[in-house]
């Protein structure tokens, strides 16, 4: 049972920083990933969209394994910003799980880096 964690969705700014709702589940990304990671990015993104925090955090290694090579994104028929999405997941984990940037002056407000828009 995966519970939709609304707080997680809010923290991740799903739909803004993390934007993958346009995903059609075609699987092109998975097929093209040079890492052969089954989870990345289609299913991982689906977990994020559905606010399945536990599943997302179980897959930290996959999230940090991505090379951001953009092979998937360039071939995504739904034009999902896959690379920025992965970065925003790392950013979320760095801030909220590893607490690497707890001294951050921007810890309360969201980072000025607007992930979803970086490549628009």
């Amino acid at each position, binding site marked *: 049972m995966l519970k939709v964690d609304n707080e997680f969705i809010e923290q991740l700014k799903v739909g803004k920083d993390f934007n993958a709702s346009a995903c059609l589940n075609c699987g092109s990304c998975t097929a093209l990933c040079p890492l052969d990671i089954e989870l990345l990015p289609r299913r991982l993104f689906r977990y994020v969209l559905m606010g399945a925090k536990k599943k997302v955090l179980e897959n*930290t290694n996959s999230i940090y394994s991505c090379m951001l090579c953009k092979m998937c994104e360039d071939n995504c028929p739904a034009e999902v910003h896959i690379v920025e999405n992965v*970065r925003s997941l790392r*950013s979320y984990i760095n801030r909220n799980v590893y607490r690497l940037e707890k001294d951050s002056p*921007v810890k309360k407000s969201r*980072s000025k880096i607007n992930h979803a828009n970086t490549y628009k």
Partner: protein
Amino acid sequence: MPIPINDTLGIFADNIRIRKSVLPIAERKVTDWTKGLKIPAGGDTILYTGQMYQLVPIINSMSHQMAKYENSWITKYFGIGRWLNRFINLSAFMAHSDPIEQAAYDGKLRNITLLLRSAGIEFGYLYEKDFYSGALAYDEGLDQAVETQANLVYQTLKSANVKRLITVDPHTTKMMRTVFPKIIPEFNIKVQSYLEVLADRKIKPLKQIDLDVTIHDSCIYARHEGMIEPPRLLLRQIGIRIQEAELSGKITQCCGGPLESLFPTKATNIAKKRIVELSDCAGEIVTMCPLCMANLKRVSPGRKITIRDISDYLVQSYCPTTSKNPGKGKKID
């Protein structure tokens, strides 16, 4: 135990905050390459290295260490390492770059300097203020560290009245050209890779080279920055025949380099796959990113292949031969 992501990234973040680079190196190592080139300090147009070429020998040495740590008992102590690193620059202790290698990578920057001069471009250099761009921190999602670094770099450029930057590698190009303006809305400095500058300037070859090469496009140049044609144009002009690998240009395959710090074994596996794809094509392999070069070279021993930086070819044709060609540096092949 794999390398702990948490503590490793913590060290990167701390380093940026305290020492203005993910892997802080001595100023001397950043600027050594300029010896004898008499590049003016400052100016409107600046050659900006972002320390990438200079860093590679150190990263190489680090990765060698990290690969040893991966799945070893030491990984348990990374937490202590991070704590310690706040007071002592651990990377300086851990990584001792090979001076021959260092000189070879410095040589690429000397090549680039000569090329820009042959194209008639006037430019300066910021020397000790040629800061790291924060590329790795950006990729790893260390947003606060990136913001700090971006502001430092921008303030430095602004106070030096810089109008235009010529970058030498894909990572710094992307950071300066695409990422910084998102973080700093007023960032209005024109950023171009030296390959784009040379191609724009219509630099004329002085000599033809009879050679087949296979291009390994950098993911960042080809897909993130859409820069595919300039290196091909510059090589074609000097008579070099370009052999395209099955995956090249827009669909180039990654060298595995981005995994170097956290997943060294995976990085090696990806590099092995890529080097096989590239060797299937006739010719020497040409790279345009120091990280690609380092990662592909790491898996090349035992294979009959030559990997060279694009500037090594360009300098041979576009620059006049001098008795003391600083471009050559020391041979690393």
